[in-house]
């Protein structure tokens, strides 16, 4: 089957493929082989099911088909390692068949998916590799789609995936769910991969579009899968809440021409009430039973915005307070930046500007376009137009996304016009 056809089939069977793959990786201990036979099994299903009808237990049928194919392929290899792998697969099959609920029980599949999450997001893997593996194997995107999501050539993405898989194999990264006492160390890594996927979708760091809706949907889907797999983890619910509460504003963030619309100017009737409600429910649950974690706090901030009838009537003081708590729980220069903006809204642009200027020397914010962009906005409000123009220019030097760039250019043009007008008033003809 050609790669293209395989991709199309995988897209239709994405969920099924992901489940199948998770179990096959455990049985075979080999991502590439698991991937190949999972795709083969799906291809056979696509050919036969329409003619012969869908089997009673489709998942078990797919797994059996994939297993037979794997054994065939392994026999051909003739190596010692292949012989061991066959023994392992057969042992797994026997074990599975002796299991009371039959060859494939759904709890077992879910365990395998959770294993796959923790392996793909293992801290021993490079950050870009974790994101790539998660999108490829848990979201079930094709290599082409993952490459497109991160605007890198397909070859680059294929190499990234290969390197990450090789590290899993060579370094002996295990296929297991961390013990309860390890979970607090390991879960944030998994959550942050999903969060990175969402942030890239929400404000693409490069390229023509501001939002990549498909990628945002994938991030939410991953968060939902993880929410089902770890129903007792409050921060998982918080992450899902955060993504929903932010994503609810997606349609209002650009106008009909695709230009950026800031939170201040968004048409709030275009916000997705269903997502907001679901986000609220998740957050409410997550806030019970202990102090809030960093995702719960960010979700709470998003919720305050979503509740406000307008930008001006937003409860900025509450947002500043939530940022204060967030700063204590998970300090980061970006949190300081967001807090400064909120404080400017609560206490006036001069106060906001003062806080922003305190961040000028923070190394992590060097090269971050939103710092000069935020300064520019407050300077504009303070009618310090020369400095505002300068700050907009600094932001333009750093911005990577075309829609944001267009927005900054517009603001700069408006500020320049204001400056010209003032000069005219100063020097009467």
């Amino acid at each position: 089957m050609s790669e293209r056809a395989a991709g199309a089939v995988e897209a239709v069977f994405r969920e099924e493929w992901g489940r199948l793959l998770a179990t096959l990786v455990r049985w075979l201990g080999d991502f590439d082989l698991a991937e190949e036979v999972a795709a083969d099994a799906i291809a056979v299903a696509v050919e036969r099911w329409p003619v012969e009808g869908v089997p009673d237990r489709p998942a078990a049928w797919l797994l059996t088909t994939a297993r037979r194919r794997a054994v065939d392929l392994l026999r051909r290899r003739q190596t010692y390692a292949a012989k061991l792998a066959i023994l392992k697969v057969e042992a797994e099959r026997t074990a599975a068949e002796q299991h009371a609920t039959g060859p494939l029980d759904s709890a077992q599949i879910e365990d395998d998916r959770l294993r796959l999450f923790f392996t793909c997001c293992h801290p021993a893997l490079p950050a870009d590799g974790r994101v790539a593996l998660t999108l490829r194997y848990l979201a079930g995107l094709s290599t082409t789609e993952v490459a497109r999501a991160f605007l890198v050539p397909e070859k680059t993405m294929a190499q990234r995936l290969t390197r990450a898989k090789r590290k899993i194999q060579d370094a002996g990264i295990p296929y297991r769910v961390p013990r309860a006492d390890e979970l607090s160390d390991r879960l944030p890594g998994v959550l942050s991969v999903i969060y990175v996927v969402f942030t890239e979708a929400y404000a693409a760091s490069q390229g023509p579009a501001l939002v990549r809706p498909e990628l945002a949907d994938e991030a939410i889907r991953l968060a939902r899968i993880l929410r089902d797999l770890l129903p007792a983890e409050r921060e998982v619910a918080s992450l899902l809440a955060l993504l929903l509460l932010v994503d609810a504003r997606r349609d209002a963030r650009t106008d009909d021409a695709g230009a950026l619309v800031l939170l201040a100017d968004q048409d709030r009737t275009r916000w997705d009430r269903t997502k907001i409600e679901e986000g609220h429910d998740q957050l409410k649950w997550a806030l019970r039973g202990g102090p809030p974690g960093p995702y719960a706090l960010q979700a709470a901030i998003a919720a305050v915005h979503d509740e406000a009838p307008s930008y001006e009537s937003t409860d900025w003081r509450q947002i500043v307070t939530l940022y204060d708590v967030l700063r204590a729980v998970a300090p980061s220069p970006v949190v300081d930046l967001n807090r400064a903006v909120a404080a400017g809204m609560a206490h006036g642009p001069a106060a906001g500007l003062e806080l922003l200027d305190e961040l000028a020397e923070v190394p992590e914010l060097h090269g971050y376009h939103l710092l000069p962009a935020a300064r520019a906005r407050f300077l504009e409000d303070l009618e310090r137009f020369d400095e505002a123009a300068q700050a907009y220019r600094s932001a333009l030097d750093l911005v990577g996304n075309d829609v944001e760039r267009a927005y900054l250019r517009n603001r700069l043009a408006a500020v320049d016009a204001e400056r010209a007008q003032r000069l005219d008033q100063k020097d009467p003809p």
Partner: protein
Amino acid sequence: MRYALLIYSEEPTAPPSQEEIDAVMAEWWAYDTAIKEAGVHLDGAALQASQTATTVRLKGEERVVTDGPFAETREVLGGYYVIDVPDLDTALEWAAKCPGAKYGSMEVRPVMEFDTPEQ
């Protein structure tokens, strides 16, 4: 799988006091005992200070011997363990327990396994 736990740390600029040495050595002995009693220990050694190192290389036929370690870095290799454990997570747990993780950093590397040539 076999893993090498490579222990890196900065060498002290001033000689530590006897109490400091005793306290640190007690930690090392405790770790050494634990890793051996757990049955995962294959090999290990502590190395003398890097100023005792001598580097040798061949330039054609000529043997070039120089004083000091091969690379001048702040953190130097101070010792190692080789352990046999099921996976990276277990190796990382042993590495994290090692006093070397507290006083410097531990590099965890799988040992290359070669297929035995068939008879």
